[in-house]
């Protein structure tokens, strides 16, 4: 859920003028009506370490930012804007919210953001759009709900 929390916060902050579910997606790049992948930015979660004592503190998660726009320059610019955002916003004191009303709630605190990689070419989509990926590492505390 930390990736969703980050996703929602970035959408609320208007990072790179991305719009949720239009060109900004969580965990997947959906298909369009013609069956081809959409273009835009999608966030994918990679696992990290958790506390050795299993307390939900200082948990680590890596989030990969996949960016694919038909214009290769735009892809790079959006990556740059995302990196600029993280260089300014180094963390969040709290990321809380819910999905589907109050069905799926989340509450993370002391979220620290460490950009870890610069964009890397990850191949092409079925549309022939080049995909580039960069990563950030999140360290955070999970609150019990």
């Amino acid at each position: 859920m930390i990736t969703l929390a980050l996703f929602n916060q970035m959408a609320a902050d208007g990072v790179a003028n991305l719009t949720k579910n239009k060109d900004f997606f969580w965990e997947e790049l959906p298909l369009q009506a013609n069956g081809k992948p959409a273009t835009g930015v999608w966030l994918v979660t990679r696992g990290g370490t958790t506390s050795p004592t299993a307390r939900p503190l200082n948990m680590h998660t890596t989030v990969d930012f996949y960016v694919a726009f038909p214009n290769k320059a735009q892809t790079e610019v959006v990556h740059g804007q995302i990196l600029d955002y993280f260089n300014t916003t180094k963390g969040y004191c709290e990321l809380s919210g819910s999905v589907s009303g109050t069905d799926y709630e989340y509450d993370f605190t002391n979220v620290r953001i460490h950009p870890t990689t610069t964009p890397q070419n990850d191949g092409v989509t079925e549309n022939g759009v080049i995909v580039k990926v960069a990563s950030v590492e999140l360290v955070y505390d999970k609150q019990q709900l």
Partner: protein
Amino acid sequence: MATKNITQLRRLVLRKTTDAGTTWSTVTIDQDNLGQDTVMTVNVAPRLMSRSSSVATTETPIEGTFDSLSGSITFIPDVWRVLGQALDRWNAATWAGADTNDGNIIYGDPTNLCGDGAYYSVIAQGVCDDGSAADVELTRCFPSIDDDIEIGTTDAVEVTLNLHPIAYNATLHASDGYPAYTARFGVESTTKKTRLNAATGVYDDVSE
């Protein structure tokens, strides 16, 4: 809301007073200049008294003493100004058009062998703490760079500022305007909520 996590110390304030606490000058090392690993190291280990008897040798801490009082902070200066200000040795450039990063730090100037002798109070502050619950303070420090400054072409220049804290001594320090203790972990006042104003160096009251 758990916002008092002490692992999220992302601002360091060095404050100094020359008028017994009436006004403070401050140097802030903010998030941009802190690395991603250890930021502050503090050692307040007490002296130990060893007792031997026929059944065991035990060691007990001696209240109010320190065995190896020490502290250091690690940061990325990026420009010499940050380091110079942290050491209180920054000579700002005065030419027309000079920006704030123009200036120098002079070592080995024989006219300044003793410095001004004033110590710093060094405070680490949690960014998500709306009071001072995550604070760490060493009240009287004489900072210096004791390790190598490694300047290369790959990684950022990361320096460790050894703080050289001194222990509070009521006879010597009672009227210097600094807090009447050596080190503090946690809130500045236990009777009212306060937070350090990094610009003024003063703990302001916080209203709930």
